[in-house]
């Protein structure tokens, strides 16, 4: 349990988004947690819970005793996640305890109303408190009083803590969050981009749009990083852009070089596909050419393998190196498969394909 809390701590300290997700989901998950609370088995884990709370005992007790002042206390940032609660759900089911928790949350909910400027956050918190009340009242019969005071402060601490955190997060990121949650419901209808405001960030429309734009750009940059070989290890936009620029330039140079090569091959630019294919299909040293033209015959993996090998070799070789060496290595690479296929009867159908291509031309 201690180890668990330690890892959760590091994880929650790393990103602030988790806290917001918690707060946003809280109104929805509050009822779930309460159900779990009610139906969970009873174990004594008060000590671990205070460790999870990351609060010393006296401070937690202070929170317990003054729910109103809980809003005013600049408590340390509660960096708990929903996962914390999910993982450690062994709270006693105590009807009186639960009613007290409900009372506290209702209190906090009303307090919330006074603080708020918008109506919508108030409605969400009111809904959550109302749900809480409903959930509590619907299952009083199932609760059993088991644990004494040890579990009392834990549950109340938790509920107060959660409400406090909810308030705090709501204070900083109210409009955008509720806008996000509300608009996410009609996400299918409107083509809006939904951005969740992080904690402590500005929430006006300009910065939201800016953030959405930046996220789009970052997503596309990730795609580019995957596409360009050797870019995923690099961090930092400028270096990644460097790599991309180098890659594009090298590809463009390759095109130039190859067109010069092709111009040198023929006295007139007349690429006789017939002769190429008949010469190629006879020999075992088939080039990549027929493999590309008849994709249905050959497994796709093979073509990809060729392509990748070409790419890698191009990366490491300089332009001045003889091209023949590369091609021959490539050809050797695919020779075993070639030999298999040339013995196949599919070679005949391959020539049919080539004839089709010729016809179209």
């Amino acid at each position, binding site marked *: 349990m201690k180890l668990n809390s330690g890892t959760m701590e590091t994880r929650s300290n790393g990103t602030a988004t988790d806290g917001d997700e918690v707060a946003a989901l809280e109104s929805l998950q509050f009822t779930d947690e309460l159900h779990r609370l009610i139906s969970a088995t009873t174990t004594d884990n008060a000590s671990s819970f205070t460790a999870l709370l990351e609060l010393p005992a006296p401070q937690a007790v202070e929170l317990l005793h003054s729910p109103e002042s809980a809003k005013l206390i600049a408590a340390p940032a509660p960096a708990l996640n929903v996962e914390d609660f999910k993982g450690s759900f062994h709270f006693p089911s105590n009807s009186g305890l639960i009613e007290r928790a409900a009372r506290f949350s209702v209190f906090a909910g009303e307090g919330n109303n006074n603080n708020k400027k918008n109506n919508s956050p108030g409605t969400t918190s009111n809904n959550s408190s109302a749900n809480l009340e409903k959930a509590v009242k619907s299952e009083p019969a199932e609760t059993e009083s088991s644990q004494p005071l040890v579990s009392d402060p834990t549950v109340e601490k938790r509920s107060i803590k959660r409400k406090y955190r909810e308030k705090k997060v709501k204070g900083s990121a109210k409009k955008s969050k509720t806008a996000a949650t509300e608009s996410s419901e009609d996400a299918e209808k409107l083509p809006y981009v939904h951005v969740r405001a992080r904690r402590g960030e500005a929430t006006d429309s300009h910065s939201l749009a800016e953030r959405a734009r930046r996220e789009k750009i970052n997503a596309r940059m990730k795609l580019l990083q995957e596409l360009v070989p050797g870019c995923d290890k690099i961090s930092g936009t400028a270096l990644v852009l460097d790599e991309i620029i180098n890659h594009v330039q090298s590809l463009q140079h390759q095109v130039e070089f190859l067109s010069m090569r092709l111009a040198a091959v023929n006295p007139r*630019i007349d690429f006789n596909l017939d002769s*190429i294919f008949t010469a190629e299909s006879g020999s075992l040293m088939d080039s990549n050419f027929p493999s590309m033209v008849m994709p249905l015959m050959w497994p796709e993996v093979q073509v990809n393998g060729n392509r990748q090998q070409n790419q890698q070799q191009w990366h490491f070789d300089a332009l001045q190196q003889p091209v023949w060496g590369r091609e021959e290595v490539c050809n050797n690479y695919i020779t075993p498969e070639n030999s298999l296929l040339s013995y196949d009867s599919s070679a005949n159908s391959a020539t049919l394909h080539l004839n089709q291509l010729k016809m179209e031309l």
Partner: protein
Amino acid sequence: MRPPSLLKQEFLKKWIMGLQRCSSTKKNMNILERKKAIKLSADVAMASSRNGTTCWSRALIANASKDGNDKHLVEQILGPESERLIVKKVSIGALVCNKRIRSKKILKRSCGIRRTRKCVPQVALASSIAKWLVRKRTQVLKSLIPGGEFMNEVCLIKETLDYIISLRAQVDVMRSLASASEQVNHS
């Protein structure tokens, strides 16, 4: 995303078609002319396989058809829809881009009076230096991608993705054709 083999097939078809038309119109080209013709038909074939969906392909075709000599080749490769592609989309794209450029210039001029400080980062903030570096890189990238000067950052990255994929396919096809024809010649 279409499978790469289909893309290559289409590219090869159009390219060979263009080359045949080229050789039929002009005999006895020297090596440089041949190289230019090969490269041009390859580029146009690659761009036409996108069917005007991407910005770089439209810009490439537009640049190719500016020159009167090449325009016929371009039209032949593109086929019947060449008129539609070249005239409509390219002109509209250019119009929009010009408007965007003009409005950006006006904005910069109005705000830039205050911002006369730097072309070189004098502030030793890491973030501003990083931003400047990234800006320089994006300028270079814009010069590389055909039609890149008209795009904003988001479109630029998308176009780069598409451009890299098509360049790769083009290089593969050209390389295998070159090696195949060299083998034929040597045997």
